[in-house]
């Protein structure tokens, strides 16, 4: 078994259209590395929400910019990282929508659910600058429990 398992897309375009394929490809690697499909589906959703956040906030009102995606499964955790070169936006400043009250339509959220899902589906999120990139990262405690044969690099890994 080779640790860590790693999947990298070094340069994609941050578009809503690319989100589905990137998240699905990443989830495919997680399943291939031994993560149960239901759990991989959860992380696919978290990753899709992270990419959407970059598209909507980091490159809001601009042409789609570069995006780098990295997925690492080390011994005890999985790290999902989405890096961009757009505007700094702070996911920690986003308030979660209120608990929806069935009797009160003013509490039914039409937005803000993406970050709530990321927080619920992962254990820890980070936001920092490194090497000219702004990195949005989420960590999930998940021991690597099955034997895997080799590490996997992305389609345009450096």
């Amino acid at each position, binding site marked *: 078994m080779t640790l860590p398992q790693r999947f990298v897309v070094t340069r994609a375009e941050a578009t809503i259209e690319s989100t589905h394929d990137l998240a699905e490809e990443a989830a495919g690697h997680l399943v291939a590395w031994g993560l149960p499909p239901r759990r991989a589906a959860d992380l696919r*959703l978290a990753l899709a929400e992270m990419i959407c956040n970059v598209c909507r906030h980091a490159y809001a009102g601009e042409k789609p910019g570069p995006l780098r995606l990295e997925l690492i499964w080390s011994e005890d955790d999985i790290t999902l990282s989405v890096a961009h070169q757009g505007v700094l936006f702070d996911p920690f400043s986003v308030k979660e929508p209120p608990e929806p009250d069935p009797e009160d339509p003013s509490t*039914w959220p039409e937005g803000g659910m993406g970050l709530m899902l990321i927080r619920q589906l992962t254990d820890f999120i980070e936001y920092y600058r490194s090497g000219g990139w702004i990195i949005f990262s989420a960590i999930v405690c998940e021991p690597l429990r099955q034997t895997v044969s080799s590490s996997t690099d992305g389609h345009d890994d450096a």
Partner: protein
Amino acid sequence: MDISTKKEGQLAVIELSGGLDAKEAPAVKKALQSLLAEGAMKLVVDMDAVNFIDSSGLAALVSTLLAARKNKADVALCGLTPAVRSVLELTRLHRVFTVYEDATAAIDR
């Protein structure tokens, strides 16, 4: 995502198939709200073939529910797959939507 609609009087049934994500949500929202604008008072959203939903997909459904309320119309979801049910529960929106096992149950309600 495939979207198909059936209308009978004030009842409209919309069948969705595929992933209801940020890319597809605008078209789904438009289709749902068109049905309300055309006078549907009972709108059944059959999600039996929806294998993925994200926050944008949820937002499209919530917007439709809010628009329906303004028209005094009803919206019901049915045929939730485990993936969709799980996301509805994570966001607590299962408490807001009326959910039926399948389209027949939703139509007969």
